[in-house]
Protein backbone atom coordinates (compact mmCIF):
# COMPACT_ATOMS: atom_id res chain seq x y z
CA UNK A 1 0.00 0.00 0.00
CA UNK A 2 1.33 3.38 -0.95
CA UNK A 3 0.75 5.64 2.00
CA UNK A 4 0.51 9.35 1.38
CA UNK A 5 1.21 11.63 4.32
CA UNK A 6 -1.28 14.33 5.21
CA UNK A 7 -0.44 17.50 3.34
CA UNK A 8 -1.49 21.02 4.35
CA UNK A 9 -4.11 22.64 2.16
CA UNK A 10 -3.63 26.38 2.56
CA UNK A 11 -6.72 28.53 3.03
CA UNK A 12 -7.03 32.25 2.34
CA UNK A 13 -6.15 32.83 5.99
CA UNK A 14 -3.09 30.58 6.15
CA UNK A 15 -1.70 30.88 2.62
CA UNK A 16 0.90 33.58 3.38
CA UNK A 17 2.49 31.27 5.96
CA UNK A 18 2.84 28.42 3.44
CA UNK A 19 3.81 30.67 0.54
CA UNK A 20 6.55 32.12 2.75
CA UNK A 21 7.94 28.69 3.53
CA UNK A 22 8.13 27.92 -0.19
CA UNK A 23 10.41 30.98 -0.45
CA UNK A 24 12.47 29.88 2.59
CA UNK A 25 10.95 32.63 4.72
CA UNK A 26 9.13 32.35 8.05
CA UNK A 27 6.20 34.75 8.20
CA UNK A 28 3.80 35.06 11.11
CA UNK A 29 1.04 37.50 11.93
CA UNK A 30 1.50 40.55 14.12
CA UNK A 31 -1.38 42.57 15.51
CA UNK A 32 -0.86 46.23 14.67
CA UNK A 33 -3.42 47.28 17.27
CA UNK A 34 -1.93 45.66 20.37
CA UNK A 35 1.57 44.71 19.21
CA UNK A 36 1.23 40.99 19.85
CA UNK A 37 2.44 38.08 17.74
CA UNK A 38 -0.23 35.60 16.69
CA UNK A 39 0.08 31.93 15.75
CA UNK A 40 -1.42 29.87 14.14
CA UNK A 41 -2.87 32.20 11.47
CA UNK A 42 -6.38 33.58 11.94
CA UNK A 43 -8.50 36.56 10.97
CA UNK A 44 -8.72 38.35 14.32
CA UNK A 45 -6.25 38.99 17.11
CA UNK A 46 -7.25 36.79 20.07
CA UNK A 47 -5.89 39.40 22.47
CA UNK A 48 -7.74 42.52 21.28
CA UNK A 49 -10.07 41.26 18.49
CA UNK A 50 -8.57 43.66 15.99
CA UNK A 51 -8.40 42.53 12.38
CA UNK A 52 -5.19 44.51 11.82
CA UNK A 53 -3.12 41.35 11.51
CA UNK A 54 -0.07 42.05 9.37
CA UNK A 55 2.19 39.34 7.98
CA UNK A 56 5.79 39.95 9.08
CA UNK A 57 8.90 38.03 8.20
CA UNK A 58 10.79 36.82 11.27
CA UNK A 59 14.09 34.96 11.69
CA UNK A 60 12.26 31.75 12.50
CA UNK A 61 14.79 31.06 15.23
CA UNK A 62 13.79 29.97 18.68
CA UNK A 63 14.26 27.46 21.45
CA UNK A 64 12.96 23.97 22.09
CA UNK A 65 9.98 24.42 24.44
CA UNK A 66 9.17 20.70 24.77
CA UNK A 67 9.38 17.53 22.73
CA UNK A 68 8.68 13.83 22.65
CA UNK A 69 10.10 10.81 20.85
CA UNK A 70 7.28 8.72 19.45
CA UNK A 71 8.46 5.18 18.87
CA UNK A 72 5.09 3.90 17.76
CA UNK A 73 3.64 5.89 14.85
CA UNK A 74 -0.09 6.38 15.32
CA UNK A 75 -0.54 6.88 11.62
CA UNK A 76 1.30 4.27 9.53
CA UNK A 77 2.29 7.04 7.14
CA UNK A 78 4.89 8.19 9.60
CA UNK A 79 6.51 4.80 10.23
CA UNK A 80 9.53 5.85 8.17
CA UNK A 81 10.22 8.70 10.62
CA UNK A 82 10.42 6.50 13.75
CA UNK A 83 11.29 7.67 16.26
CA UNK A 84 9.25 10.73 15.43
CA UNK A 85 11.02 13.71 17.02
CA UNK A 86 7.92 15.78 17.71
CA UNK A 87 8.56 19.18 19.19
CA UNK A 88 7.02 22.44 20.27
CA UNK A 89 9.31 25.29 19.28
CA UNK A 90 9.07 28.70 20.95
CA UNK A 91 10.05 31.36 18.46
CA UNK A 92 11.99 34.37 19.70
CA UNK A 93 8.76 36.34 19.20
CA UNK A 94 7.09 34.15 21.85
CA UNK A 95 4.66 32.10 19.78
CA UNK A 96 4.88 28.31 19.92
CA UNK A 97 4.52 25.89 17.04
CA UNK A 98 4.45 22.12 16.61
CA UNK A 99 7.20 20.79 14.38
CA UNK A 100 9.71 17.98 14.07
CA UNK A 101 13.42 18.03 14.82
CA UNK A 102 15.95 17.02 12.16
CA UNK A 103 19.75 16.74 11.98
CA UNK A 104 19.97 15.86 15.66
CA UNK A 105 20.36 12.58 17.51
CA UNK A 106 17.60 11.78 20.01
CA UNK A 107 20.14 11.69 22.83
CA UNK A 108 21.30 15.23 22.02
CA UNK A 109 17.84 16.80 22.30
CA UNK A 110 17.43 19.02 25.36
CA UNK A 111 14.64 21.41 26.24
CA UNK A 112 15.85 24.99 25.90
CA UNK A 113 18.33 24.27 23.07
CA UNK A 114 18.61 26.89 20.30
CA UNK A 115 16.91 25.94 17.05
CA UNK A 116 16.83 27.25 13.53
CA UNK A 117 14.50 26.54 10.62
CA UNK A 118 14.98 23.63 8.26
CA UNK A 119 12.82 24.12 5.17
CA UNK A 120 11.59 20.74 3.94
CA UNK A 121 9.88 20.90 0.57
CA UNK A 122 7.62 17.85 0.65
CA UNK A 123 5.64 18.47 -2.57
CA UNK A 124 5.81 20.92 -5.46
CA UNK A 125 3.50 23.24 -3.52
CA UNK A 126 4.18 22.62 0.15
CA UNK A 127 7.20 23.19 2.37
CA UNK A 128 7.12 22.09 5.99
CA UNK A 129 8.94 24.06 8.68
CA UNK A 130 11.10 21.62 10.57
CA UNK A 131 13.80 22.57 13.07
CA UNK A 132 17.48 21.77 13.59
CA UNK A 133 20.05 22.80 16.20
CA UNK A 134 21.65 26.16 15.58
Amino acid at each position, binding site marked *: *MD*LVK*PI*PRPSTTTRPFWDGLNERKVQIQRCDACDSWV*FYPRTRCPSCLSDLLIWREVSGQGVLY*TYTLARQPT*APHFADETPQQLAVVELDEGVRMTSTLVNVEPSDIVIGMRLQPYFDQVTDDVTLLRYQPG
Partner: protein
Amino acid sequence: MNAEIDATSEKFLRGKYAIVGVGETPYTRGSGTTTRALGTYAVRRAIEDAGLRMDDIDGMLSYSGNDSIPSTAVAGDLGIRLNFYMDVMGGGSSTEALIGIAMGVIEAGMCKTVVIFRSMNGYSQIRIGGTGRGSGASNLSGDGLFGRAYGQSSAAQAFAQTFMRHMYDYGTTPEQIAHVKAIHSEHASNNPKAYYKHRVTVDDVLSSRMIVKPLHLLDCCVETDNATAIVVTRMDRARDCKHMPATILSVVGRCCKPRIDNHYQAGPISTVAGHYAKEILWPNAGVGPDDVDLTGSYDAFTFTTMLQLEDYGFCEKGDGGEYVSSGIMRLGGARPNNTSGGHLCEGYTHGMNMVIENVRQLRGEIDDSCPTDTNGKRQHTYDYSTGGCRQVRDPEITANLGWAMPGTGSALVMAKGER
Protein backbone atom coordinates in the same frame (compact mmCIF):
# COMPACT_ATOMS: atom_id res chain seq x y z
CA MET B 1 -4.86 26.16 51.69
CA ASN B 2 -8.60 26.79 51.64
CA ALA B 3 -8.76 30.13 53.36
CA GLU B 4 -10.72 31.81 50.56
CA ILE B 5 -13.33 29.10 50.30
CA ASP B 6 -16.67 30.22 51.66
CA ALA B 7 -18.29 27.08 52.98
CA THR B 8 -20.97 28.88 54.94
CA SER B 9 -23.42 29.76 52.19
CA GLU B 10 -25.35 27.50 49.84
CA LYS B 11 -23.95 27.57 46.34
CA PHE B 12 -26.07 26.74 43.33
CA LEU B 13 -27.38 23.17 43.53
CA ARG B 14 -25.03 21.99 46.27
CA GLY B 15 -26.54 18.95 47.97
CA LYS B 16 -29.76 19.00 45.93
CA TYR B 17 -28.92 16.20 43.46
CA ALA B 18 -27.49 12.73 43.80
CA ILE B 19 -26.25 9.70 41.94
CA VAL B 20 -28.63 6.93 42.95
CA GLY B 21 -27.77 4.07 40.61
CA VAL B 22 -24.65 2.66 38.97
CA GLY B 23 -24.09 -0.27 36.64
CA GLU B 24 -21.66 -1.73 34.16
CA THR B 25 -20.91 -4.67 31.90
CA PRO B 26 -17.81 -6.82 32.37
CA TYR B 27 -14.58 -5.20 31.11
CA THR B 28 -13.36 -7.38 28.24
CA ARG B 29 -11.30 -7.43 25.08
CA GLY B 30 -13.61 -8.85 22.48
CA SER B 31 -17.07 -8.40 23.94
CA GLY B 32 -18.48 -10.47 21.09
CA THR B 33 -21.53 -8.26 21.08
CA THR B 34 -22.74 -4.85 19.98
CA THR B 35 -22.44 -1.50 21.72
CA ARG B 36 -26.25 -1.54 21.71
CA ALA B 37 -26.38 -4.74 23.77
CA LEU B 38 -23.62 -3.48 26.07
CA GLY B 39 -25.28 -0.09 26.59
CA THR B 40 -28.70 -1.58 27.24
CA TYR B 41 -27.24 -4.02 29.78
CA ALA B 42 -25.37 -1.32 31.73
CA VAL B 43 -28.31 1.12 31.74
CA ARG B 44 -30.67 -1.56 32.99
CA ARG B 45 -28.23 -2.53 35.73
CA ALA B 46 -27.90 1.10 36.87
CA ILE B 47 -31.67 1.63 36.98
CA GLU B 48 -32.21 -1.59 38.91
CA ASP B 49 -29.36 -0.69 41.26
CA ALA B 50 -31.26 2.51 42.09
CA GLY B 51 -34.35 0.46 42.91
CA LEU B 52 -36.22 2.25 40.12
CA ARG B 53 -38.44 0.87 37.37
CA MET B 54 -37.74 1.52 33.70
CA ASP B 55 -40.67 3.97 33.56
CA ASP B 56 -39.16 6.04 36.38
CA ILE B 57 -36.50 7.14 33.86
CA ASP B 58 -37.41 9.92 31.43
CA GLY B 59 -34.04 11.45 30.54
CA MET B 60 -30.97 9.97 28.85
CA LEU B 61 -27.50 11.25 28.00
CA SER B 62 -24.56 9.56 26.32
CA TYR B 63 -21.20 10.55 24.91
CA SER B 64 -18.75 9.13 22.45
CA GLY B 65 -15.60 9.85 20.54
CA ASN B 66 -15.46 6.52 18.76
CA ASP B 67 -18.12 3.84 18.50
CA SER B 68 -21.25 4.16 20.63
CA ILE B 69 -25.01 3.71 20.43
CA PRO B 70 -27.69 6.43 20.44
CA SER B 71 -29.93 6.92 23.47
CA THR B 72 -32.94 6.20 21.30
CA ALA B 73 -31.77 2.61 20.70
CA VAL B 74 -31.17 1.93 24.38
CA ALA B 75 -34.45 3.57 25.43
CA GLY B 76 -36.32 1.60 22.83
CA ASP B 77 -34.82 -1.68 23.98
CA LEU B 78 -35.77 -0.98 27.58
CA GLY B 79 -39.29 0.34 26.91
CA ILE B 80 -38.39 3.78 28.25
CA ARG B 81 -40.33 6.82 26.97
CA LEU B 82 -38.01 9.82 27.07
CA ASN B 83 -38.87 13.43 27.85
CA PHE B 84 -35.26 14.40 27.14
CA TYR B 85 -32.19 12.89 25.55
CA MET B 86 -28.93 14.02 24.02
CA ASP B 87 -25.94 12.14 22.59
CA VAL B 88 -22.85 14.31 22.63
CA MET B 89 -19.33 14.12 21.28
CA GLY B 90 -16.50 13.72 23.72
CA GLY B 91 -14.32 11.35 25.62
CA GLY B 92 -12.69 11.83 28.99
CA SER B 93 -14.19 14.62 31.11
CA SER B 94 -17.65 13.97 29.66
CA THR B 95 -19.00 12.02 32.63
CA GLU B 96 -18.81 14.90 35.08
CA ALA B 97 -19.95 17.42 32.45
CA LEU B 98 -23.03 15.34 31.65
CA ILE B 99 -23.86 14.97 35.34
CA GLY B 100 -24.02 18.76 35.45
CA ILE B 101 -26.20 18.83 32.35
CA ALA B 102 -28.52 16.23 33.88
CA MET B 103 -28.94 18.41 36.97
CA GLY B 104 -29.66 21.40 34.75
CA VAL B 105 -32.33 19.77 32.63
CA ILE B 106 -34.07 18.33 35.67
CA GLU B 107 -33.94 21.73 37.36
CA ALA B 108 -35.44 23.25 34.21
CA GLY B 109 -38.39 20.90 34.48
CA MET B 110 -37.55 19.09 31.27
CA CYS B 111 -37.47 15.65 32.91
CA LYS B 112 -37.20 14.01 36.32
CA THR B 113 -34.52 11.34 36.34
CA VAL B 114 -31.63 10.95 33.91
CA VAL B 115 -29.51 7.94 33.09
CA ILE B 116 -26.09 8.65 31.60
CA PHE B 117 -24.20 5.95 29.74
CA ARG B 118 -21.02 5.25 27.78
CA SER B 119 -20.88 2.17 25.56
CA MET B 120 -17.83 1.25 23.51
CA ASN B 121 -16.02 -1.65 21.95
CA GLY B 122 -12.88 0.37 22.58
CA TYR B 123 -10.59 -2.56 21.95
CA SER B 124 -12.28 -4.70 19.33
CA GLN B 125 -13.88 -1.99 17.19
CA ILE B 126 -12.57 1.57 17.19
CA ARG B 127 -9.41 2.21 19.19
CA ILE B 128 -8.82 5.68 20.60
CA GLY B 129 -5.84 7.33 18.98
CA GLY B 130 -6.52 5.37 15.84
CA THR B 131 -3.43 3.17 15.85
CA GLY B 132 -3.32 1.46 12.49
CA ARG B 133 -6.15 3.48 11.06
CA GLY B 134 -5.22 4.37 7.48
CA SER B 135 -6.74 7.81 7.33
CA GLY B 136 -3.65 9.95 7.00
CA ALA B 137 -3.80 10.81 3.34
CA SER B 138 -6.23 13.65 3.81
CA ASN B 139 -5.77 17.30 3.06
CA LEU B 140 -5.35 19.34 6.20
CA SER B 141 -6.84 22.64 7.22
CA GLY B 142 -7.37 24.54 10.47
CA ASP B 143 -5.05 23.64 13.32
CA GLY B 144 -4.46 20.27 11.64
CA LEU B 145 -2.09 22.23 9.41
CA PHE B 146 0.18 22.76 12.34
CA GLY B 147 0.18 19.38 14.07
CA ARG B 148 -0.88 16.50 11.90
CA ALA B 149 1.26 17.56 8.96
CA TYR B 150 4.22 16.81 11.23
CA GLY B 151 2.82 13.44 12.22
CA GLN B 152 1.37 14.37 15.60
CA SER B 153 -1.99 12.68 15.81
CA SER B 154 -2.48 10.63 18.98
CA ALA B 155 -3.37 11.68 22.50
CA ALA B 156 -0.15 10.14 23.79
CA GLN B 157 1.96 12.22 21.39
CA ALA B 158 0.18 15.46 22.26
CA PHE B 159 0.05 14.89 26.02
CA ALA B 160 3.65 13.66 26.21
CA GLN B 161 4.84 17.17 25.43
CA THR B 162 3.10 18.41 28.56
CA PHE B 163 4.65 15.58 30.59
CA MET B 164 8.16 16.26 29.26
CA ARG B 165 7.93 19.94 30.09
CA HIS B 166 6.62 19.16 33.59
CA MET B 167 9.73 17.04 34.18
CA TYR B 168 11.88 19.92 32.94
CA ASP B 169 10.10 22.61 34.95
CA TYR B 170 9.78 20.73 38.25
CA GLY B 171 12.25 17.87 38.22
CA THR B 172 9.49 15.27 38.13
CA THR B 173 10.87 11.81 37.36
CA PRO B 174 9.44 8.80 35.48
CA GLU B 175 10.21 6.73 38.58
CA GLN B 176 7.94 8.92 40.73
CA ILE B 177 5.12 8.73 38.21
CA ALA B 178 5.43 4.95 37.78
CA HIS B 179 4.05 4.67 41.32
CA VAL B 180 0.64 5.61 39.88
CA LYS B 181 0.51 2.39 37.87
CA ALA B 182 1.94 0.31 40.70
CA ILE B 183 -0.65 1.66 43.15
CA HIS B 184 -3.58 1.31 40.77
CA SER B 185 -2.50 -2.28 40.07
CA GLU B 186 -2.58 -2.99 43.82
CA HIS B 187 -6.15 -1.71 43.88
CA ALA B 188 -7.10 -3.72 40.80
CA SER B 189 -5.81 -6.90 42.39
CA ASN B 190 -8.69 -6.51 44.84
CA ASN B 191 -11.23 -5.82 42.11
CA PRO B 192 -12.78 -8.96 40.60
CA LYS B 193 -14.06 -6.84 37.67
CA ALA B 194 -10.63 -5.47 36.67
CA TYR B 195 -9.22 -6.44 33.28
CA TYR B 196 -5.65 -6.46 34.65
CA LYS B 197 -5.68 -7.92 38.16
CA HIS B 198 -1.97 -8.63 38.61
CA ARG B 199 0.18 -6.29 40.65
CA VAL B 200 3.13 -4.62 38.95
CA THR B 201 6.07 -2.77 40.45
CA VAL B 202 7.69 0.57 39.67
CA ASP B 203 10.53 -1.38 38.06
CA ASP B 204 8.07 -3.26 35.86
CA VAL B 205 6.77 0.08 34.57
CA LEU B 206 10.22 1.53 33.97
CA SER B 207 11.47 -1.58 32.18
CA SER B 208 8.44 -1.85 29.88
CA ARG B 209 8.79 -0.76 26.27
CA MET B 210 9.05 2.99 25.63
CA ILE B 211 6.08 4.13 23.54
CA VAL B 212 6.14 7.92 23.48
CA LYS B 213 8.74 9.53 25.73
CA PRO B 214 8.32 9.64 28.74
CA LEU B 215 5.52 7.06 28.50
CA HIS B 216 6.38 3.39 28.82
CA LEU B 217 3.84 0.79 27.81
CA LEU B 218 2.70 0.44 31.43
CA ASP B 219 2.24 4.21 31.78
CA CYS B 220 -0.62 3.89 29.28
CA CYS B 221 -4.14 2.72 30.07
CA VAL B 222 -5.75 -0.50 28.94
CA GLU B 223 -8.19 -0.55 26.00
CA THR B 224 -11.36 -2.54 26.66
CA ASP B 225 -14.91 -3.22 25.46
CA ASN B 226 -17.56 -2.22 27.97
CA ALA B 227 -20.50 -0.03 28.91
CA THR B 228 -21.09 1.93 32.10
CA ALA B 229 -24.10 3.88 33.39
CA ILE B 230 -25.20 6.09 36.26
CA VAL B 231 -28.57 7.50 37.34
CA VAL B 232 -28.91 11.14 38.45
CA THR B 233 -31.97 12.56 40.17
CA ARG B 234 -33.08 15.27 42.59
CA MET B 235 -32.71 14.67 46.31
CA ASP B 236 -36.45 14.42 46.97
CA ARG B 237 -36.55 11.38 44.68
CA ALA B 238 -33.11 10.13 45.71
CA ARG B 239 -34.37 9.61 49.28
CA ASP B 240 -36.74 6.91 48.07
CA CYS B 241 -34.13 4.96 46.12
CA LYS B 242 -32.59 1.70 47.27
CA HIS B 243 -29.17 2.97 48.40
CA MET B 244 -27.90 5.90 50.39
CA PRO B 245 -27.56 8.73 47.86
CA ALA B 246 -24.13 9.84 46.67
CA THR B 247 -24.89 13.53 47.07
CA ILE B 248 -23.47 15.92 44.49
CA LEU B 249 -21.79 18.90 46.14
CA SER B 250 -20.22 20.46 43.06
CA VAL B 251 -19.59 19.79 39.41
CA VAL B 252 -17.39 21.39 36.74
CA GLY B 253 -17.80 20.51 33.07
CA ARG B 254 -15.16 20.80 30.36
CA CYS B 255 -13.44 23.77 31.93
CA CYS B 256 -10.66 25.08 29.68
CA LYS B 257 -7.31 26.79 29.67
CA PRO B 258 -7.06 30.02 27.64
CA ARG B 259 -6.59 29.68 23.86
CA ILE B 260 -8.13 26.22 23.97
CA ASP B 261 -7.76 25.86 20.20
CA ASN B 262 -4.01 25.60 20.86
CA HIS B 263 -3.66 25.55 24.65
CA TYR B 264 0.11 25.83 24.91
CA GLN B 265 0.15 29.28 23.29
CA ALA B 266 -1.06 30.88 26.51
CA GLY B 267 0.60 29.91 29.76
CA PRO B 268 2.80 26.95 30.53
CA ILE B 269 2.12 23.67 28.75
CA SER B 270 2.83 21.97 32.10
CA THR B 271 -0.27 23.50 33.70
CA VAL B 272 -3.59 21.76 33.05
CA ALA B 273 -7.24 22.78 33.16
CA GLY B 274 -7.63 21.88 36.83
CA HIS B 275 -5.79 25.12 37.59
CA TYR B 276 -8.93 26.93 36.41
CA ALA B 277 -11.54 24.30 37.31
CA LYS B 278 -10.60 24.33 40.98
CA GLU B 279 -11.80 27.93 41.26
CA ILE B 280 -15.31 26.63 40.53
CA LEU B 281 -15.12 23.19 42.10
CA TRP B 282 -14.09 23.91 45.68
CA PRO B 283 -16.11 27.07 46.41
CA ASN B 284 -19.26 25.50 44.97
CA ALA B 285 -18.67 22.30 46.96
CA GLY B 286 -18.04 24.13 50.22
CA VAL B 287 -15.10 21.84 50.88
CA GLY B 288 -11.47 21.85 49.81
CA PRO B 289 -8.84 19.26 48.89
CA ASP B 290 -7.99 18.65 52.55
CA ASP B 291 -11.55 17.47 53.19
CA VAL B 292 -11.48 14.82 50.46
CA ASP B 293 -11.16 11.19 51.59
CA LEU B 294 -10.52 9.60 48.21
CA THR B 295 -9.96 10.76 44.65
CA GLY B 296 -10.66 9.50 41.17
CA SER B 297 -8.02 11.31 39.14
CA TYR B 298 -8.30 10.22 35.51
CA ASP B 299 -5.53 7.87 34.48
CA ALA B 300 -5.44 7.70 30.70
CA PHE B 301 -1.75 7.83 31.48
CA THR B 302 0.08 7.75 34.80
CA PHE B 303 1.03 11.39 34.31
CA THR B 304 -2.56 12.60 33.94
CA THR B 305 -3.37 11.43 37.48
CA MET B 306 -0.43 13.41 38.83
CA LEU B 307 -1.04 16.59 36.85
CA GLN B 308 -4.65 16.88 37.91
CA LEU B 309 -4.08 16.16 41.60
CA GLU B 310 -1.45 18.88 41.52
CA ASP B 311 -3.47 21.53 39.68
CA TYR B 312 -6.63 20.89 41.73
CA GLY B 313 -4.58 21.75 44.81
CA PHE B 314 -3.97 18.39 46.49
CA CYS B 315 -0.34 19.48 46.69
CA GLU B 316 1.71 22.52 45.72
CA LYS B 317 2.32 23.12 42.02
CA GLY B 318 5.35 21.09 41.02
CA ASP B 319 5.07 18.62 43.91
CA GLY B 320 2.88 16.14 42.00
CA GLY B 321 5.68 13.64 41.56
CA GLU B 322 6.30 13.63 45.29
CA TYR B 323 2.56 13.33 46.02
CA VAL B 324 1.91 10.30 43.83
CA SER B 325 5.04 8.47 45.05
CA SER B 326 4.42 9.18 48.74
CA GLY B 327 2.02 6.31 49.36
CA ILE B 328 -0.90 8.65 50.11
CA MET B 329 -2.83 7.24 47.11
CA ARG B 330 -2.67 3.61 48.23
CA LEU B 331 -5.54 1.79 49.91
CA GLY B 332 -4.80 2.38 53.58
CA GLY B 333 -3.12 5.68 52.72
CA ALA B 334 -4.57 9.04 53.68
CA ARG B 335 -6.30 9.67 50.34
CA PRO B 336 -6.51 6.66 48.01
CA ASN B 337 -6.88 7.29 44.28
CA ASN B 338 -8.77 5.15 41.75
CA THR B 339 -9.47 2.27 44.10
CA SER B 340 -10.93 0.23 41.21
CA GLY B 341 -7.62 0.27 39.36
CA GLY B 342 -8.94 2.96 37.02
CA HIS B 343 -8.22 3.10 33.33
CA LEU B 344 -4.72 1.75 33.84
CA CYS B 345 -6.04 -1.57 35.17
CA GLU B 346 -9.80 -1.94 35.54
CA GLY B 347 -10.97 -0.87 32.09
CA TYR B 348 -11.36 2.08 29.77
CA THR B 349 -14.70 3.89 29.73
CA HIS B 350 -13.69 7.53 29.46
CA GLY B 351 -14.00 8.26 33.15
CA MET B 352 -17.34 6.81 34.15
CA ASN B 353 -15.95 3.79 36.00
CA MET B 354 -14.10 6.16 38.36
CA VAL B 355 -17.37 7.87 39.28
CA ILE B 356 -19.10 4.50 39.74
CA GLU B 357 -16.30 3.39 42.05
CA ASN B 358 -16.60 6.46 44.25
CA VAL B 359 -20.39 6.09 44.50
CA ARG B 360 -19.91 2.54 45.79
CA GLN B 361 -17.15 3.71 48.15
CA LEU B 362 -19.48 6.31 49.68
CA ARG B 363 -22.17 3.68 50.14
CA GLY B 364 -19.62 1.43 51.87
CA GLU B 365 -20.57 -1.27 49.39
CA ILE B 366 -17.51 -1.87 47.25
CA ASP B 367 -17.80 -5.06 45.22
CA ASP B 368 -14.64 -6.82 46.34
CA SER B 369 -14.15 -10.39 47.58
CA CYS B 370 -14.99 -9.72 51.24
CA PRO B 371 -17.58 -12.10 52.74
CA THR B 372 -21.26 -11.18 52.80
CA ASP B 373 -23.60 -11.56 55.76
CA THR B 374 -26.96 -13.32 55.69
CA ASN B 375 -28.59 -10.19 54.26
CA GLY B 376 -26.11 -10.14 51.39
CA LYS B 377 -24.31 -7.11 52.83
CA ARG B 378 -20.56 -7.23 52.48
CA GLN B 379 -18.52 -7.39 55.69
CA HIS B 380 -15.37 -5.52 54.76
CA THR B 381 -12.11 -6.70 56.31
CA TYR B 382 -9.98 -3.67 55.37
CA ASP B 383 -7.19 -6.12 54.62
CA TYR B 384 -5.80 -4.62 51.44
CA SER B 385 -3.42 -7.43 50.48
CA THR B 386 -3.82 -9.12 47.09
CA GLY B 387 -7.29 -10.49 46.50
CA GLY B 388 -8.59 -8.76 49.61
CA CYS B 389 -10.66 -5.73 50.52
CA ARG B 390 -10.71 -2.42 48.68
CA GLN B 391 -13.33 -0.55 50.70
CA VAL B 392 -11.98 2.68 52.19
CA ARG B 393 -12.93 3.16 55.86
CA ASP B 394 -16.00 5.40 56.19
CA PRO B 395 -15.34 7.87 53.38
CA GLU B 396 -17.42 11.05 53.56
CA ILE B 397 -16.21 13.10 50.59
CA THR B 398 -14.88 12.06 47.18
CA ALA B 399 -13.51 14.03 44.22
CA ASN B 400 -13.44 12.91 40.59
CA LEU B 401 -11.05 14.74 38.28
CA GLY B 402 -11.87 14.06 34.63
CA TRP B 403 -9.36 14.63 31.85
CA ALA B 404 -10.02 15.31 28.17
CA MET B 405 -6.59 16.74 27.41
CA PRO B 406 -4.18 19.11 29.17
CA GLY B 407 -6.39 22.06 28.24
CA THR B 408 -9.81 20.66 29.20
CA GLY B 409 -11.06 18.99 32.35
CA SER B 410 -14.17 18.28 34.41
CA ALA B 411 -14.65 17.48 38.07
CA LEU B 412 -17.20 16.24 40.60
CA VAL B 413 -17.36 16.33 44.37
CA MET B 414 -19.71 13.90 46.10
CA ALA B 415 -20.62 13.28 49.73
CA LYS B 416 -22.04 10.34 51.62
CA GLY B 417 -25.80 10.63 52.08
CA GLU B 418 -28.01 13.67 52.39
CA ARG B 419 -26.29 16.74 53.78
